[in-house]
């Protein structure tokens, strides 16, 4: 031990901040770039939404005129109605499907891992692929309807893809197929995290499996349910690729969604101001979901900290 503490004397003393410059750069440059692009891009888009920009960004102030134009357009109105329908149907159905799958898988069945992989694999696939594949399956001349016809039941009808009123449901189907597995994974984690002593106590109290689920396990899942709902809503609000590949907004504009409207205004009609306004409206819809969620999380955390 006598020799270990040799101090290295006489290294030229660079100032602390010069010696640490590389680490400061490595920390700050990426973080600042990321933070700066988020803030400045948002502000810039918001600003553009108040200008009369069309093909190129220009200065000027038109107040809320872009917003009123977007809100008054048939395109946006249909997109918004579709979002309400698609959002609620998809979120509800995928949460229910996910919960059912999770409960089924929670029964300590054989092959659980394989089954879980089957329900989750759509998440690894792009929305473009999902949309393309489902556009074939749901195409009345190619897919399920054609198959049933060929099998002999010629009056069978399943043509939602080309039915103006029902087309939005094809997107619901594809989206459920794609992301129920995600809800299942979260629910399953929640089911598995219920304290096994509590379940044993319920068994000793004489509760059967159904009652145990209804009274003990499911009530403990509601925080996860909220998380699932919020994340799926966030996904629903920004849905773009899936529709683009499945229906491309059609038939007509029957399956228009806000993200498609933004893209259409910005890059097909070159109405930058209105496109930006539509993007800001999307952000506002998102905030309407996320802010209450953030407040709820904050209250939960405060309560947990006080307990």
């Amino acid at each position, binding site marked *: 031990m006598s020799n270990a503490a040799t101090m290295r004397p006489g290294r030229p003393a660079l100032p602390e901040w010069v010696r640490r410059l590389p680490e400061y750069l490595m920390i700050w440059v990426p973080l600042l770039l990321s933070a700066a692009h988020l803030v400045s891009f948002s502000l810039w888009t918001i600003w553009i939404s108040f200008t009369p920009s069309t093909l190129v960004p220009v200065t000027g102030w038109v107040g809320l005129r872009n917003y009123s134009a977007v809100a008054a357009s048939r395109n946006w109105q249909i997109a918004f109605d579709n979002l309400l329908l698609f959002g609620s149907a998809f979120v509800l159905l995928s949460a229910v499907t996910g919960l059912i799958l999770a409960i089924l898988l929670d029964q300590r069945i054989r092959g659980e891992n394989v089954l879980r992989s089957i329900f989750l*694999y759509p998440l690894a696939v792009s929305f473009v692929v999902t949309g393309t594949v489902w556009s074939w399956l749901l195409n009345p001349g190619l897919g399920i309807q054609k198959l049933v016809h060929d099998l002999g039941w010629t009056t069978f009808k399943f043509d939602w893809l080309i039915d103006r009123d029902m087309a939005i449901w094809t997107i619901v189907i594809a989206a459920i197929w794609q992301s129920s597995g995600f809800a299942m994974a979260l629910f399953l984690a929640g089911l598995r995290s219920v304290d096994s002593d509590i379940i044993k106590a319920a068994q000793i109290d004489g509760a059967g499996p159904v009652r145990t689920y209804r009274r003990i396990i499911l009530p403990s899942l509601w925080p996860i349910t909220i998380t699932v709902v919020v994340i799926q809503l966030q996904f629903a609000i920004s849905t773009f690729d899936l529709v683009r590949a499945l229906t491309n907004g059609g038939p007509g504009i029957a399956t228009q969604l806000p993200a498609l409207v933004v893209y259409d205004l910005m890059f097909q009609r070159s109405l930058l101001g209105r496109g930006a306004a539509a993007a800001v409206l999307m952000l506002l819809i998102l905030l309407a979901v996320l802010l209450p969620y953030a407040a709820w999380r904050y209250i939960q955390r405060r309560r947990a900290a006080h307990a």
Partner: protein
Amino acid sequence: MIYLAVSLIAAAWLAPLVVVVLNSLRTNEEIAQGSMIGWPQHLAWSNYAAAWSGFCVAETCAGIRPYMLNSALVTIPATIFSTLLGAIAGYAVSLWRFRGDNWIYGIVTLGLFLPQQMRLLPWTIVLRDVGLINTLTGLVLIHTIQGLSFTTLFCRSYYVAIPHELIRAARIDGAGFFRIFWRIILPLSGPILIVTVIWQFTHIWNEFLYGVTFITGQQQPVTAALIALSAAVADIPQHGVQSAAVIIAALPTLLIYLLGGKYFVRGLTAGAVK
């Protein structure tokens, strides 16, 4: 009962994949006579050859190969950069408190929520100004910077579980920021780096909006090419070849999912508990 229910649902979930795989082995004529759903009469492997390097999108007839290459050239560097930078940032934020760290971390994580549509126009202008519009480098830049939100979050939440005493001990031993990262933190980071790489790779590979907005023609990633392909063949359907193309395009992420399933799920749930 349970097995029956689960098996039926599982079959429904597998059906689209099975249908596409079967179609990719049927000739276009065979599909045209029947429906998309059917058993191949004889295996038409030629669909894959055509999809890979034969069929035409727009004016060029090089198959899906150049677009796969484009996707790889974007996805691989962007995944590596965003993961490495995110690991360092997450390490700095979680284990080296510095002034303003909470603020900047909070802003960076907002990036998880900000819709892409809010960033489309600004990116267009930035890319044009730096001369990267319509280049793969531009997409790498976008995905690296935007990916930081996820990678920093993933790595931070993993690193906060590392005891601070480890850092203190190393500081007393005389190790600096990079040496501690390299010798102590990185060797512990295996699981989270796998999770992050899988997540980033899957997301960037599957991304469509930026690929179709900032890139045109031959430079497009494969997701955009698939859309272009369905538009191009709308008149004379070639569903066999298209199915093969879809399979090829989905294969990299599916393989990653099969190989790293555990880490894939961990990424999903980690991303959810933001």
